[in-house]
């Protein structure tokens, strides 16, 4: 169990904000921090990883104290078993892929992990390349692999896929799930993509002005279970076309594009890129063996 009970006054453009958080994260879960920009998500992750010091409070991980303002305990980032992946990859531009990974090795750490991660991330053929020659998806695979070099218990993903195109995002989502399970990680994601959150996370915490205002399982959180409809998916609006008196809305669900006929009352409230719930009764779809 990861327990954070921390306070921190953050200075921002709009004045001070007090981050006052109580978060309990079950070991092995994939959780998401959700909320507007400036709600305190990244600051929370920085405090968990030791990059930012809380003003007061306690952080314990599986019974070990990482931070305690009263007892003056504050483990340095290297002592916390946390892997951190940033949106902008944060790779060393002057190093090859392999060197980027090797740089993360701790003193006296066995180098076998490098081969394992190059394999897992399918980076073998790219290992001598410099980051600037890689695509966004490849760079993020390197950043992920690097975050795993020290065999962390906790993996922090701060909007890791938001700069990537849809196809790559879906591919890397699968990869994130695979890593999460293989290395038995507790993974903490920051994302605004509802489809991604529902696909990946066990539990969602919503932050607003430095406080947790809502918590729930991903599908409960976004109201996806709140209809009796059993044939339901979440996806992203790709196209809205008016045809006659109706609208045809194309939605990307997983790798498939489906079409939903809709009245203007819904269509007018939607735009391309919106996350949507598509639902129908279990009585409607036909099913056939192929």
């Amino acid at each position: 169990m990861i327990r954070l009970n921390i306070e921190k006054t953050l200075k921002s453009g709009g004045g001070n904000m007090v981050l006052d958080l109580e978060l309990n994260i079950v070991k092995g879960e994939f959780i998401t921090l959700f909320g507007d920009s400036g709600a305190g998500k990244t600051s929370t992750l920085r405090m968990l990883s030791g990059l930012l010091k809380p003003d007061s409070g306690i952080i314990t991980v599986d019974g070990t104290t990482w931070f305690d303002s009263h007892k003056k305990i504050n483990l340095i980032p290297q002592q916390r078993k946390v892997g951190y992946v940033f949106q902008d990859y944060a790779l060393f531009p002057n190093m090859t892929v392999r060197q980027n990974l090797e740089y993360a090795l701790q003193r006296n750490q066995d180098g076998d992990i490098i081969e394992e991660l190059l394999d897992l991330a399918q980076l073998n053929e790219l290992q001598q390349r410099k980051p600037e020659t890689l695509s966004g998806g490849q760079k993020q695979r390197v950043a992920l692999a690097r975050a795993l070099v020290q065999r962390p218990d906790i993996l922090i993903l701060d909007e890791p896929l938001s700069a990537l195109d849809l196809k790559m995002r879906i591919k890397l989502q699968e990869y994130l799930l695979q890593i999460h399970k293989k290395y038995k990680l507790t993974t903490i994601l920051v994302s605004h993509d509802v489809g991604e959150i529902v696909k990946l996370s066990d539990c969602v915490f919503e932050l607003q002005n430095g406080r947790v205002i809502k918590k729930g399982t991903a599908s409960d959180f976004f109201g996806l279970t709140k209809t009796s409809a059993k044939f339901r998916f979440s996806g992203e609006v790709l196209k809205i076309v008016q045809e006659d008196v109706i609208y045809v809305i194309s939605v990307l669900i997983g790798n498939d594009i489906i079409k939903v006929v809709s009245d203007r009352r819904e269509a007018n409230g939607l735009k391309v890129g919106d996350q949507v719930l598509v639902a129908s009764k279990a009585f409607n779809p036909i099913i056939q063996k192929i």
Partner: protein
Amino acid sequence: MNSFPGQITDIETYGDMSIVHVEVANQIELISIVLDTPQTVPYLIKGNRVNVLFKEMEVTISTQNELDISIENRISGIITNIEIGALMCRLTLETNFGEVVAIISSMSAKHLGLTENMKVKIMVKLNEVILAP
């Protein structure tokens, strides 16, 4: 999507399915069949408030008042607006529980001779009605 708030007045369960009656206005009930039971979802309790949802395209319109047909939900309404398109037609209907939108073929609209202010029956099969607590 047509959506109306209502109150559950009756639940009939067999196996994993339930037929649920929801009163959306005085004496007007809409009926839904769901793959849920009071044991599987907490909201299925008599007296609970739920929203009743059905799509515009699932609405059948009849100009006859009494029809021998296997459509369980039948409500009276008055056509307040008609938009006839090349293939499809959008009707706005006024009922005792609010405005219903129906999308039917322009062919049917013409065949039935639908006009504004006409009194019609609005019908929806029970397996097209979604409940949203």
